[in-house]
């Protein structure tokens, strides 16, 4: 059933592109944030359909559960009065210039991806216990990533505590 297998990836990918495009175009900021959340969910489903279960579930847990809420709270707390996007664009490019910039960025990214050594190696066989393999790699060879994440989270917590502390006169 190869056709159905491919549709499991293509359909969420189409939803992802449509939702991301809609979130860029929409006027109402909260609607744009919700479309972005839909694109996060679609990306998680793409990961799961490609066989990367752990990454897919972590994408759903972190992006939909935390980052989407962060975006929404940021919108609510900083501009609760005016929620439609203003008509004047940020730069003088206009829609054609924006599309050209986006296309150029896409070409550059694809060039980097296809010229990297990872694209030339054959796909390794999926591990029998992927979560255990990821855990072993994070504690073994790639422990630097874990330490950096710990430092980053500590910095974020300290920053949040400083922001939330009352100003002493």
């Amino acid at each position, binding site marked *: *059933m190869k056709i159905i297998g491919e549709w499991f990836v293509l359909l969420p990918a189409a939803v992802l592109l449509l939702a991301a495009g809609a979130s860029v175009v929409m006027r109402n900021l*909260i*609607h744009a944030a*919700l479309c972005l*959340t839909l694109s996060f*969910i679609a990306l*998680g489903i793409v990961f799961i359909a490609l066989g990367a*279960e*752990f990454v897919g*579930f*972590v994408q*759903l*847990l972190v992006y*939909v*559960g*935390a980052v*989407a*809420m962060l975006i*929404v*709270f940021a919108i*609510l707390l900083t501009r609760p009065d005016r929620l439609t996007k203003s008509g004047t664009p940020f730069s003088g490019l206009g829609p054609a210039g924006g599309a050209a910039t986006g296309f150029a960025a896409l070409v550059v990214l694809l060039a980097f991806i296809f010229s990297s050594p990872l694209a030339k190696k054959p796909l390794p066989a999926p591990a029998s*216990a*992927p*979560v255990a393999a990821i855990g072993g790699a994070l504690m073994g060879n790639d422990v630097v990533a874990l330490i950096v994440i710990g430092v980053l989270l500590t910095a974020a917590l300290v920053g949040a505590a400083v922001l939330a502390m009352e100003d002493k006169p």
Partner: protein
Amino acid sequence: MTGMIERAPIEILGWFLGLLGSFGVPGWILAAVSAVIIIGTVIGIFLGLFALTSVMERKILARVQNRYGPNRVGPFGLFQPVADGIKMITKEDLVPRTADKAVHFLAPVVMMVPALMVLAIIPYGRDMVPAELNSGILYFFAVGAGTEVAVFMAGWASNNKYSVLGAMRAIAQMISYELPLVISAIVAAMIAGSLSPSAIVAAQGGFAFGFVPQWFVLTPWGFTACLVFYIAALAEANRSPFDLPEGESELVAGHLTEYSGFKYATFFMAEYVGMFAVCGMLVTLFLGGWQAPLPFLTIVPSWCWFFAKVCFVAFTMIWVRATLPRLRIDHLLAFAWKFLLPMSFAAFLSAACWHYAGRGPLAWLLSLAIVGIPYLILGNSFTNRFAVSRRTYQFSE
């Protein structure tokens, strides 16, 4: 005989699929039909439990408060859900004129879908998991995160200051209590060595000394993690004593203020189904899932044991609702960050020490100390801050 009862659901499904296959139905249609039957059965069971719980909760709350509950509709009031359903369906569906119509409509849907999807990975009996996932626990929390988006959508779309405030408080509460929930679940997954719920239930099998069950709740770290999970689950499901977002005397039902009729019923249903799902996860992680407590009780089918345990945990949740007063939002958040999170870390460390210190008395003492000392310190630190000082009264003359 008992083996037949225990395997009855699987055997019936297999017989039906074999019947269809003998009519020449192709394999992939059989797989689809099997999936639809399993999904329909699970959803039907849990919606039936929801209907039963909505009346049992009112009766249990009433009995605790020394009065009868609903007892007019049907024998002992057991047909009350039918009357409630008719009322909810025939109520007028009010949408505020300035509300965001699309988001207002979608919020109950987005709330209900994760609550139902989460039921797919819970093992209901021996070999009875609807979806056998390697990282089932991760799936549970990932899908449960969709509930927070729904709460925000409900509060925002109502275009009502109180709804938005209620939604923000509800989201702050859910995010704060998600951490102790996940960490205490990871404690059980760590000792069992797998994120799959079936493997965690299987790791609690067997009987020590021939008759003592080896459930995780009967160890110091497991008891702590079970209690932390239970309290955090009460908060995630917005149930009392953490029901500030939807208390009537607080923000007029908070994010649910502008919902009436069937949409309110959908929110209600999603909350109860979510409560049962998280009870099912607690039973799976700590109370041994479908395992029987004593060796001679294994004649009772495994799915009977599972539902008995889930109903017992749900009963304790209703009991807690009847007993404890509501927590204020700052007390609630302080409790999560300053007590539950350190206790979940203590349970984590205690479980790791228990695992590596062998399984003898030293391991038990060590894990008990690692869990007990932070509990005593943290508990005392809370009471001292809110200690009542000596009061002096001054009367006007």
